[in-house]
């Protein structure tokens, strides 16, 4: 489990979600689905997070907040869009206030569909994101060595 050896911390933010996917994300951190046994901890601080879990589509108010949170996270980082609303806008796609999924404002690495996305699927998405994170970390180290 080398890819999980560095114990990444995750940050959760609700874009404009109905809350269904949010409580499933929180259910991943509590007993039964317990993502903490992999060393992954739910922090509230963007400056200390490696993985960003976003639920819900993007509307005009949350656009700037999501961009700010993304810019506050240090490199390397990965973004997981949880739930169909975060992937494409979901069932609210035709609403006047929804612009679309999370990829309209920030780059997304893993999409986890579902309404509400199940904890098993979310953990699977996070594990796939960790492989991408490991690759980004290796690239980051190489660039640092080449630059130094």
């Amino acid at each position, binding site marked *: 489990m080398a890819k999980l050896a560095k114990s990444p911390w995750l940050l959760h933010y609700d874009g404009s979600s109905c809350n269904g996917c949010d*409580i499933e994300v929180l259910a991943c951190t*509590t007993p039964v689905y317990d993502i903490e046994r992999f060393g992954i901890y739910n922090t*509230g601080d963007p400056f200390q997070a490696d993985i960003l879990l976003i639920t819900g589509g993007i509307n005009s*108010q949350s656009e700037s*907040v999501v961009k700010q949170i993304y810019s506050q996270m240090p490199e390397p980082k990965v973004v997981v869009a949880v739930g169909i609303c975060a992937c494409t806008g979901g069932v*609210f796609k035709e609403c006047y206030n929804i612009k679309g999924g999370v990829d309209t404002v920030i780059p997304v690495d893993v999409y986890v569909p579902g309404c*509400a996305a199940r904890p098993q699927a979310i953990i699977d998405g996070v594990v796939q994101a960790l492989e991408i994170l490991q690759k980004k970390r290796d690239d980051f180290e190489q660039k640092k060595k080449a630059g130094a």
Partner: protein
Amino acid sequence: MAERSVIPFGPQHPVLPEPVHLDLVCEDETVVEAVPSIGFVHRGLEKLVEQKDFKQYVYIAERVCGICSFGHGMGYCQAVEHVMNIEVPPRANYLRTIWMEMSRVHSHLLWLGLLADALGFESLFMQSWRLREKILDQFDEMTGGRVIFSVNCIGGVLKDLSDEQLKTLLKVIDEIEAELKPILRTFLQDYTVASRLRGLGVLSPDDAIAQGAVGPMLRASGVSYDARMTGYAAYGDLEMEPIISKDGDSYARCEVRLKELLQSFDLIRQAVAKIPAGPIAVPVKGNPNGEYFNRIEQPRGEAFYYVKGNGTKFLDRFRLRTPTTSNIPPMVSMLKGCQLADVPLLILTIDPCISCTER
């Protein structure tokens, strides 16, 4: 004279599962005024009635909020059924009641966990969410979904429950109650919890009525009002009394919700004992033409569902007034005079559901 500073709270905050923004005007550490700024979860889904017909709209109404999902579906269906004069079969009413009470149990356990987390009582957070998983497993087995399970339809429900499933439900309820009682006793008698919650955010009965509080907030201030007493669905056949407390502070609000948890177990047992056999839905013909104000008791309080039809398959208007919309004005007035460190606690004692408020 102390200097005033404005401290922004939210929309991203460790204790807030949903984005809400408050500008707290503080003198040193005392909050003098709180100005709410909402709109982060506003999707504008009430306008979708123009594009989805009234039968499809059940799926949108359910997704207003993931925690109160079943109640929203049921409230919407009941309003349309009333406009179209549809008589829902008794078995469907009992099934709706059982699922609604299970929703209440899961919602209150969720709230208890979040409040404990805000207090720093993380082990209680984990314990209450572990117990909540048992209810969610029951939902999964009965309906196929854990949080949004789409079993309401105009005219009844979509899934039936066998006697085996009802027996298993009763067994699970007994297990949860047995594990929950010592936890609740510990929480209510704990010195730290009491010292942080007692006397915080006191709301008198007159203030609660004048400021439009609903649900456990209203009942904790001594006003006996619970929309379930009007007898919708199968509540007319079940015995219950609104649970009230006289103190009106945050501790009283917690106590009322925890006692309602135990009351819900009792209501589920009564409903399972009395559920009649029969069909679970009736066919729906025609389109709604007319208007009606429906109200149900969600875990967070009384919710109004207004439906207006014009004879076509697209409704003219669907309006949902959720309990948190009514609870925000009293919350803002309670924040005045409290300490900065108590702000997250006060917000959580009203049990906010921002996605319900903003739709």
